[in-house]
């Protein structure tokens, strides 16, 4: 081995490159994808169905049915309608003829003969069904014997009439033989109106099963009998997509003959392709070991996105997935080579197929498998094309252009997720459901179909589908016009599903159910109020374009002159918000082309109720910008001061008003209260002049603030007033003061000084092992406070504002979510920054969707996230820069684990929220060394979010969004009602008026009588150091922290809820009691009835609830109107 040392060294060097890639893989993605593989395997194991149990008796049943069908006597040809009525009379079974029903005049005959072949197909044989499927079906195809068919049957639904009759005969026989053992019903195969099938649900056996094995109860399968045409019976060359095969209209008009009938044709091809596709799938299974598993993964992926083989579910289900995968394994490249290798694993196959779907949009470009290049471009008009040229079938014939677009979009989103090395791949891909329309679409419209004319197209895809397709075409042109800039990223139409119906009746028309239209906004384009159409020029082409434009838009189109003297066709809309714009356009254009909306109940539009809760408007961001501008002016004023001893390095805003995130809009010049200053921090260039003691630094800061104040006042006399306020500091080492700068014109700012020496001194104190423990502890909390205030908050402010411009929906979503926290009286337990980050997370890691483009989707998804977030074991990691290395993520997760080990009861650290700038994870969830929120409150948040999400899902579009914001005061033990009038009066104080004297004065009633005698008139109110309601709550929490947990929403909330801490009940007496206690009656049992035999011990004490409440009443004084005690027990 060692004979060529030189060579070995060379090898080593050559491998260096590979090592580098390995290393980079390590630090980014490899670990993620491996976890994905493991998780997917686990998923496969847990959803795998035990066929022996779930389908007990299925094989017997199949054999039985086969026997029954084989035993049916064949009969000679009878005229179609005569045979049908005979059947109805004799067996009370209706023949499920497809629409249009055969005419009286039809003269061809139907017969019955034993089927040419029986076969079981579908996922029962391939064993790819999963536990979470809604319904499980065993598909049995019976091939009609060639003897009863004629070659020309492919025309004018003749084959389908014969097929329906055949099915009815089978149904009558099966019903006679099985009797009450099974329930029979008709249903449409994949919702295709041409293909009714017979569903047989084993009845009694299920009950027996339920009796014997109790909870299993998943014996819920049905056998579907699907008659089909023999392979190759109809000449496929005549069934091409462009052929027109339904020539007789319903009334016998032949004018429909010119139109091609692609859906009808494809259905007919599909009828004879059951067995060929069974073969294809079988081959794929044999060739590729992981094929089945990949199909199961695909089934789950589609199912979680609401896709299914049914037309109403998009027409792309497990079968299409499996066939597509099989075709790609066979050969998909142009040269006939297989696109995928058979040796790939299931997850690899899954990823490959998702990738395939994300790059091929078969609604825009036909996708052809196999040899030959048929001309298919023309057929895109009627729907997406996914053509299997070996079997000459358009696999996507059940899909509308909208479902192809949605599938494409979902594939794109999933693919983006799978290449995002940092996100969790698994649960958005397979676990989360993303088929709920309000979560996905910004606007949802319901369109009732009742008005639609009965004018049925020659092709057979049914009325709702036809209507949907029309609506889609119009909306697509109106909202997703590329020339004008696409307003909508996605338009989706959901057609109603057709339910099964009993064999004794005719099929019900699903006409009464409404269509659902979902629109996903492009938030930037959607807010455009003026659309610029084609230029009105002299050339023929331009004229033609203008004519087209006018034709489409009607009177709305007008000519306008724009800059550089261009004259264009223009549309001007009157609405302001994206939602209203979309609604206006939809109503206008549908009304124009389909005459929808002239009667008001035909179209109803949903999705705007949530933003209306806060009356979020388009002008909001302008108001935020006003605040921002005022801040800029203030910054300039400070920077312009010449006489400062140090140069200003930075003035940074740190309040939600200056990052587009406050619930209330920033308002200046309020007459109701003293100015509420916007908080900022100022930092100076590094200097050695700061004293080397934290205490002295704090005093120096006061001197500094006084100086800045007087300089500002003298630089703009009359315009600026300044006040130095004293902070509510407990220790001399904390920040002691702030400077409030009030502009005459309204804005006001609060300035705190950042000194970098303070940080290093505190750090030194934390590390100093010779210091006493309590001092070090104190230094640690102070350091955390310092870092939050001076390091984290300015950065936070910066990236929230950046993201607010990047995602237009972010700011309203944050405000809505904060409003929700307020409404449920949670916000006093959460920092605003935490809420902002939670919302931001929904925008930055939006999987399985894209970032929300409206406040309501953002809000609902945030609730969904809060409900799902398992904060006990998962950190919330927000990758603000988008480039956080995996190492950092793992170290954050490790830190959380370490915290949980140190503090398993979660007394100090509960929520763990880390960002790239703030990897410690506790800056926003720990305040002054205490968890904010505590575990109890965090649990409450999760349960509230859960129930809100449940309500949203259950109510769907009928949701009354006010319900989400109604707090239930019943849950609180005590509710403190505050007097709003008194509270309002506390908002204004004056430097010259002593409040005590004032209070006495009002009693004398001589004060407010004459406005001109009131010495307060003309005085400037002092700024609010802190909101009085907030102060009151803070004091209550400090005094009763152990005994009561208080809940309060925003500062304008006039009720405070409180809950007794259950751990504070009866205990033995000691000196340092956590709160007010009363002695337990020694001789007789106590009032609360808690006589546990410990009454003899004299030193037991009980919580003195009444005394505590009386104390609160005394502290609150005139501020408290009423204390409401639950149950009103004394």
């Amino acid at each position, binding site marked *: 081995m060692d004979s060529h040392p030189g060579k070995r060294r060379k090898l080593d060097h050559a491998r260096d490159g590979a090592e580098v890639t390995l290393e980079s893989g390590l630090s980014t993605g490899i670990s993620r994808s491996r976890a994905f593989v493991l998780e997917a395997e686990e998923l496969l194991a847990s959803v795998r169905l035990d066929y022996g149990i779930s389908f007990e008796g299925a094989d017997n049943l199949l054999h039985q049915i086969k026997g029954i069908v084989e035993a049916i006597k064949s009969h000679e040809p009878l005229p179609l309608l005569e045979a049908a009525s005979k059947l109805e009379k004799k067996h009370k079974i209706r023949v499920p003829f497809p629409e249009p029903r055969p005419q009286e005049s039809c003269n061809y005959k139907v017969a019955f003969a034993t089927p040419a072949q029986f076969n079981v197909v579908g996922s029962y044989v391939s064993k790819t069904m999963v*536990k979470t499927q809604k319904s499980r079906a065993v598909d049995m195809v019976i091939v009609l014997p060639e003897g009863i068919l004629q070659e020309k049957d492919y025309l004018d639904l003749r084959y389908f009439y014969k097929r329906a009759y055949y099915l009815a005969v089978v149904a009558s026989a099966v019903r006679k033989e099985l009797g009450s053992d099974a329930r029979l019903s008709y249903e449409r195969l994949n919702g295709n109106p041409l293909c009714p099938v017979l569903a047989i649900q084993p009845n009694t056996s299920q009950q027996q099963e339920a009796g014997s094995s109790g909870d299993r109860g998943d014996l819920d399968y049905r056998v579907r009998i699907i008659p089909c045409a023999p392979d190759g019976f109809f000449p496929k060359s005549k069934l091409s997509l462009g052929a027109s095969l339904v020539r007789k209209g319903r009334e016998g008009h032949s004018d429909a003959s010119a139109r091609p009938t692609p859906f009808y044709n494809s259905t007919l091809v599909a009828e004879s392709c059951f067995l060929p596709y069974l073969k294809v799938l079988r081959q794929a299974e044999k060739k590729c070991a992981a094929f089945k598993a990949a199909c199961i993964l695909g089934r789950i992926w589609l199912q979680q996105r609401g896709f299914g083989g049914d037309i109403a579910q998009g027409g792309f289900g497990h079968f299409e997935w499996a066939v597509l995968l099989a075709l790609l394994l066979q050969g998909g490249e142009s040269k006939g080579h297989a696109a995928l290798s058979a040796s790939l694993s299931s997850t690899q196959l899954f990823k490959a197929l998702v990738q395939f779907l994300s790059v091929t949009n078969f609604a825009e470009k036909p996708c052809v498998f196999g040899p030959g290049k048929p001309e298919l471009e023309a057929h895109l008009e009627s729907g997406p094309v996914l053509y299997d040229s070996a079997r000459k079938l358009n696999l996507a014939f059940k899909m509308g252009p909208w479902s192809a677009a949605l599938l494409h979009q979902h594939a794109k989103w999933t693919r983006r997720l799978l290449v995002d090395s940092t996100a969790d791949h698994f649960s958005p891909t397979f676990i989360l459901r993303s088929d709920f329309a309000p979560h996905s679409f910004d606007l949802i419209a319901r369109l009732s179909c009742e008005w639609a004319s009965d004018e049925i197209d020659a092709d057979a895809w049914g009325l709702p589908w036809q209507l949907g397709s029309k609506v889609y075409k119009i909306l697509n042109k109106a909202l997703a016009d590329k020339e004008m800039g696409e307003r909508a990223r996605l338009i989706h139409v959901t057609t109603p599903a057709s339910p099964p119906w009993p064999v004794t009746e005719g099929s019900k028309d699903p006409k009464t159910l409404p269509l659902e239209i979902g629109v996903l906004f492009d938030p930037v384009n959607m807010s455009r109020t003026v659309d610029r159409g084609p230029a009105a020029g002299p050339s023929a082409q331009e004229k033609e374009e203008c004519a087209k434009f006018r034709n489409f838009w009607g009177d709305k189109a007008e000519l306008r002159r724009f800059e550089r003297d261009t004259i264009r066709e223009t549309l001007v809309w009157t609405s302001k918000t994206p939602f209203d714009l979309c609604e206006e356009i939809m109503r206008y254009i549908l009304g124009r082309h389909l005459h929808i909306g002239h009667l008001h109940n035909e179209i109803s539009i949903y999705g705007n109720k949530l933003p209306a809760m806060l009356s979020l408007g388009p002008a909001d961001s302008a108001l935020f910008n006003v605040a921002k501008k005022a801040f800029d002016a203030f910054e300039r004023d400070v920077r312009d001061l010449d006489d400062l001893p140090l140069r200003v390095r930075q003035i940074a805003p740190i309040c939600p008003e200056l990052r587009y995130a406050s619930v209330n809009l920033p308002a200046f010049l309020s007459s109701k209260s003293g100015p509420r200053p916007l908080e900022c921090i100022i930092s100076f260039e590094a200097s050695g002049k700061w004293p080397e003691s934290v*205490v002295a630094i704090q005093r120096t800061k006061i001197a500094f603030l*006084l100086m800045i104040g*007087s300089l500002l006042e003298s630089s703009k006399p009359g315009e600026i007033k300044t006040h130095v306020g004293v902070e509510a500091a407990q220790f001399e080492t904390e920040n002691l003061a702030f400077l409030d700068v009030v502009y005459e014109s309204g804005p006001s700012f609060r300035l705190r000084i950042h000194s970098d020496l303070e940080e290093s001194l505190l750090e030194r104190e934390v590390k100093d092992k010779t210091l006493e423990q309590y001092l070090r502890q104190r230094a640690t909390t102070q350091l955390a406070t310092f870092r939050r205030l001076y390091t984290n908050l300015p950065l936070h402010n910066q990236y929230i504002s950046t993201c607010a411009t990047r995602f237009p929906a972010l700011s309203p979503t944050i405000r809505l979510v904060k409003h929700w926290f307020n409404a449920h009286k949670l916000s006093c337990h959460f920092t605003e920054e935490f809420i902002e980050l939670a919302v931001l997370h929904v925008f930055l890691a939006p999987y399985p969707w894209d970032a929300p483009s409206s406040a309501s989707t953002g809000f609902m998804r945030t609730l969904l996230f809060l409900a799902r977030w398992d904060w006990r074991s998962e950190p919330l990691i927000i990758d603000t820069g988008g480039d956080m290395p995996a190492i950092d993520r793992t170290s954050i997760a490790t830190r959380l684990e370490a915290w949980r080990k140190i503090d398993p009861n979660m007394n100090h650290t509960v929520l763990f929220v880390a960002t790239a700038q703030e990897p410690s994870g506790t800056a926003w969830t720990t305040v002054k060394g205490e968890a904010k929120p505590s575990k109890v409150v965090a649990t409450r948040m999760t349960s509230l979010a859960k129930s809100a999400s449940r309500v949203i899902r259950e109510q769907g579009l009928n949701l009354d969004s006010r319900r989400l914001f109604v707090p239930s005061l019943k849950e609180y033990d005590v509710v403190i009602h505050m007097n709003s009038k008194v509270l309002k009066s506390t908002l204004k104080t004056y430097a010259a008026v002593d409040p005590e004297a004032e209070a006495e004065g009002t009693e004398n009633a001589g004060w407010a009588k004459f406005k001109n005698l009131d010495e307060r008139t003309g005085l400037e109110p*002092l700024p609010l150091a802190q909101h009085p309601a907030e102060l*009151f709550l803070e004091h209550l929490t400090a005094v009763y922290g152990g005994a009561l947990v208080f809940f309060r929403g925003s500062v304008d909330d006039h009720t405070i809820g409180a809950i007794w801490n259950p751990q504070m009940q009866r205990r033995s007496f000691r000196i340092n009691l956590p709160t007010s206690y009363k002695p337990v009656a020694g001789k007789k049992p106590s009032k609360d009835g808690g006589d546990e035999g410990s009454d003899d011990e004299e030193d037991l004490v009980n919580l003195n609830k009444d005394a505590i409440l009386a104390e609160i009443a005394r502290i609150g004084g005139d501020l408290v109107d009423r204390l409401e005690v639950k149950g009103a027990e004394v």
Partner: protein
Amino acid sequence: MPSGPATLGDFSVLPVSIPPLPSFPNKDVFHYLYVRRNTPKIPTPNDTRSLFLTNVPADSTEVHLRALFASLVGAGRFESAVFEGERKDARSQSQSPIDAATPASAARLLQAHSKKRKREDEEAERAREEAAARLPSTWTRPLRRSGSTAVVLLADKKSVEQVLKAIAKVHKTRKYPTWGGNLPEGRVPPLGSVWLKAHNRLSYPDKQALQASVDAFSLLYARREQEAAEIAKRLRNEPDEDGFVTVTRGGRAAPASRNEAEEAKRRMLEKEEKKKQELINFYRFQLRERKKAEQAELVKRFDEDRRKLEAMREKKGKFVPEA
């Protein structure tokens, strides 16, 4: 009516009747004070004439307690009250600015080598300076933590006996004292909205006063700094009792700033780091070790994923697609 024992351990129970308020009109509400003789761990000369109270109401003031004791044993017995957190040796008390004014570097030196400054006039001087440098309080009236304690100083030893007797008697006569009864007019600042308003007003003290307080502090601080420097200088040359010379920072002129020292250390570390960097991947053994470490890392990660999966499996529902 209050029920329960008259004593709990060595504490006498003093029920106090709470008058109803419009916002909480419950009658028959009693607060219980627990009273005993004051026996602190470190005895003081006043112990014999003081009482230890626990579970004082949150809105207690000295005036309240004075009125309470007056109703028990008549006026003239009550001298003062010290509440929890106000006692001089309590740690939770805010640091006195005069101690805090000592520069950090000097604090330890002073501690180790301070002269015994216990003279009366110095104490008084200190108190005066302290008051000058202290920032004004922003509250007209503090709240007590619920269930906290207080020490009440009475006129003499006899008063203590009388109070305890009176408390015992209260249980028999059932004439309970009332909280906030016969308070002198205007001596207790009101709570409620006025209290909050007053706080807002006090939060913005007069600028001159603030400036004066800051000036007083800086004067003090400068003096302390100088003292410390002198001590340090002195110590450098003087052996202590055991004959050792204390090593202090800095050259001959002045002790070095700690910041500079840290800066120098950082530079040195940087230099070392740079030197190390240059030698990475220089030897073959380094490459080999790196590769080994990477492999170990891979194995570790795999194990981690495994463990995570285990954990997920334990929590049911993680692998079942949502219905």
